[in-house]
């Protein structure tokens, strides 16, 4: 009975696995192609390696359902590097990561879809672009992660965003992994833009999961 439950849970999680946005993929490949035409081989190869990393991570079916936050952040940085190559100065990134959260166990592929969502709604549609802020803190033995995007105060106020596949998937995954013992919310701060916050219980990663090699 227990085993059946856990199998069902695994199947559920794998169905919810993140899928790479094709629009992002093709535009990134096109940017790499321009870098080659431009004779900028180092930037082109770096970009292709980053795209490869993303593809690998999304294809990797053996990925653990949970992973240290440090690894998640490394992955998000790869993703953001590609987006910055594509969007140029229209995308600004601000990270405030508290050191004691780096070892915290979080769901794998948690942040990237949320950051992508924030870029898609808060930066890409705006001619002047915008800023993405990622923040994590430890409070009362719980990990708080916030992802914010700048933008006009009224943008996406109609709840349209909450229907986005990215957010719905995240909500389901958190529910499957933590039940009631988590918080996941979406808000539109006074200052404008949009904020997604996640709160999960703090668990430290086992030592062998630490020190994951980072591409940078």
């Amino acid at each position, binding site marked *: 009975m227990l085993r059946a439950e856990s199998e069902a849970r695994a199947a559920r999680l794998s169905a919810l696995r993140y899928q790479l946005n*094709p*629009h992002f*993929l*093709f*535009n990134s*490949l*096109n*940017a*790499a*192609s*321009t*870098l080659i*035409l*431009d004779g900028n081989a180092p930037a082109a190869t770096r970009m292709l390696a980053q795209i490869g990393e993303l593809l690998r991570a999304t294809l990797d079916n053996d990925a653990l359902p949970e992973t240290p936050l440090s690894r998640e952040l490394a992955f998000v940085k790869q993703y953001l590097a590609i987006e910055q*190559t*594509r*969007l*140029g100065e229209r995308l600004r990134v601000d990270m405030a990561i508290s050191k004691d959260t780096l070892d915290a166990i979080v769901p794998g592929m948690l942040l990237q879809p949320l950051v992508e969502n924030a870029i898609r709604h808060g930066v*890409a*549609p*705006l*001619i002047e672009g915008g800023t993405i802020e990622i923040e994590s803190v430890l409070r009362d033995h719980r990990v708080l992660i916030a992802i914010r995007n700048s933008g006009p105060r009224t943008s996406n106020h109609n709840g349209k965003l909450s229907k986005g596949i990215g957010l719905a998937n995240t909500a389901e995954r958190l529910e499957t992994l933590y039940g009631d013992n988590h918080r996941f919310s979406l808000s539109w701060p006074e200052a404008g833009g949009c904020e997604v916050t996640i709160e999960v219980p703090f668990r430290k990663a086992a030592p062998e999961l630490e020190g994951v090699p980072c591409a940078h």
Partner: protein
Amino acid sequence: MRALIVDDEPLARRGVALRLKKFKDVEIVGECGDGSAAVQKILALSPDVVFLDVQMPGMDGFEVLRALPRENLPSVIFLTAYERHALRAFEVHALDYLLKPVDDERFSAAVERARQMGDSTSKLRMAERILQMLHRNCVTYPSRFPVRSGSRIQVVLTEDIEWVAAAGDYAELHSAGHCHLLRETMNSLEEKLDPSQFLRIHRSRIVRVRCIRELHAIENREYRVKLLDGSEHRSSRTYADRLENWLSSGNHERSRPS
């Protein structure tokens, strides 16, 4: 040939500019990163060809074209990453597009074709195809109408509507022998019905063209229109053009400019 490059991604614009370098007779007259700037530049510079990204912040590529007066429509080579619906539309209307990442050979072929668009006749034909595409792919019609009677809301599917009659502030939707009263004027209802499937024949009548069985000429270009369900309707002279156009087109599927 004078070219304008429109794409929100700087590297994508650069990619087009670099590929254009080998065409000595092509001059890049401008670049823009969003739709409204593109509209301004097209109007100001009248480029011969525009490399136009489909997905952009603010106005997308289709909206750019829709914002332009017919006589200002340039030759267009669409740039697209992953818009499957758009691709079908481009194919159907024989419009040139380039997939990202861009293939050099396809790029050259597209530039070659654009170059042959030099004369005014082919330019006009291109504008016509663009207009047809915009008309057919960007207008969406509701697939159903909610009809309220008391606390009950009945759903009438557009595909089931055979004819519509005006009834004061209401419109009668006739389908399968039933009549549903919808609070909507004929004019606003007409806009919600696909003109390739519905025809207004009178101030107070819209009929589904597929349901028309017989026409009896009365006088002054007026007709008695008999439908499949046996109902008869009188067309008026005001709408005679539309009815006669439909009659002579012989093609129920083709959308007419409304």
